[in-house]
């Protein structure tokens, strides 16, 4: 589904990705983990073409994505910070994305699921962080695409919405979709992820099932496992 080969990316002197290799087959939920600044978001943005890697190739559905844009029709993206143009209304935003993607979306279902109906006529600048995130999720889940990339999907969500989100993800997974999720909420990962990709200082430290990570670190819950990796590298 997605092949990432020897991706390098630097910002000035700061080398963020140092030759990341990664292959993600179709189906399943992949959690991209790593400490702050390990390059998770950069990797995802490279995949989406928001950032352009210095070296290496990325293939989505076996086609290189360099200077391409059509492939993004196969990807739904949930950005980390829900930055929307402030002076348009929620319904207009949804309509616009619908219009731009030229696809039928199931926004009605999502609006109901997240309880967004009262906000549809509000301007985005006037929404709370949580509500914005719900709009963000609606936009991300609206379309039926084989790849879902979610950057911190849980931020700002209330428990009810969180439960709804988890259910949504599981349902979509059942439908054979591939998820790429970054998050710092380890409980969320434990509950939902099939595979873990652990990024550390611009390299992949570990890929595989969660159990493998526990084994590797000798811990039995994710938080401690990750903490162990972080301290281990600091000491090294």
């Amino acid at each position: 589904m997605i092949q990432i080969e020897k991706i390098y990316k630097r910002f000035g002197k700061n080398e963020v990705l140092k030759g990341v290799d990664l292959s993600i087959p179709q189906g399943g939920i992949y959690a991209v983990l790593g400490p702050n600044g390990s390059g998770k978001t950069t990797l995802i943005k490279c995949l989406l073409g928001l950032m352009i890697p210095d070296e290496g190739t990325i293939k989505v559905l076996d086609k290189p994505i360099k200077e391409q844009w059509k492939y993004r029709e196969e990807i739904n993206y949930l950005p980390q910070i829900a930055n929307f143009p402030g002076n348009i209304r929620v319904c207009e935003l949804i309509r616009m994305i619908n219009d731009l993607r030229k696809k039928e979306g199931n926004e009605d279902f999502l609006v109901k699921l997240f309880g967004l109906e009262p906000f549809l006529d509000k301007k985005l600048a006037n929404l709370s962080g949580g509500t914005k995130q719900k709009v963000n999720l609606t936009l991300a889940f609206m379309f039926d695409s084989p790849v879902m990339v979610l950057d911190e999907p849980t931020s700002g969500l209330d428990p009810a919405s969180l439960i709804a989100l988890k259910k949504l993800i599981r349902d979509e997974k059942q439908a054979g979709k591939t998820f790429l999720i970054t998050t710092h909420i380890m409980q969320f990962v434990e509950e939902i992820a099939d595979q873990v990709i652990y990024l550390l200082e611009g390299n992949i430290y570990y890929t595989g099932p969660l159990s493998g990570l526990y084994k590797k670190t000798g811990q039995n819950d994710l938080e401690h496992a990750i903490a162990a990796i972080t301290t281990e590298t600091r000491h090294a």
Partner: protein
Amino acid sequence: MLKILKYSFKDLMRSRWSYVYFLFYLLLGFVLLFLNNDLSKAVITLMNIIVVLVPLISTIFGIMYYYNSREFIELLLAQPLKRTSIFLGLYLGVAGSLTLSLFLGLGLPFALYGLFKSGDILNFSLLIITGSFLTFIFNGLAFNIAISNENRIKGFGYAVLLWLFMAVIYDGLFLLTLIVFEEYPLDTFSLVATVLNPIDLSRILILLELDISALLGYTGANFKAFFGTRLGITSALLMLMFWLLIPLWTSIKQAKRKDF
């Protein structure tokens, strides 16, 4: 691209700055006409103002719009859209809405004062054409600055500096050069130096219309060829076209390489 244009245009039509700009021109038009009570004089005064003011407003507005639509751009970039179309759409949206404000803001008062029945329609059209060119050119330059500067304050600073340079400092240096080297034949130099600054270029277009009698007093052969024939107006418009396309091209090139 047309869709992006549609949305950025819609967005701008909603923004109060477009209205401020529009009202400003409306006011300017009415005040000039009221003070002069003479269409020709108002058009001439306006021409003097336009070549300086439009670049300033276009640069500031362009850079402001770009910085304010960061979110919009990021949203769009994740969609299956070509980067070129996104930026081209935004550019056309902002330049188009500014041009529309200029056109309506000035057109309305002048139309009410009987522009269509007067002999000044040609001068007025020239005014609008020059204004539109300058809007597009300086929006393009503003996009260049904005794309290459993440820091908004820096970006604004460069934008104002750019305007100041093009509108004032450049002509100062130009004048100084002409005076220092007055013993040498300077007509080719003058024409080249004029062409290299879009504000000067627009000014020449206006001079060709308003001051042709004075310009024909030049002795240099190149001046004669330039001002005495159609060559002047054709090459000035052509060069403005270049000035429009080059910043646009570089800003799209930059946008293609940029990380968001």
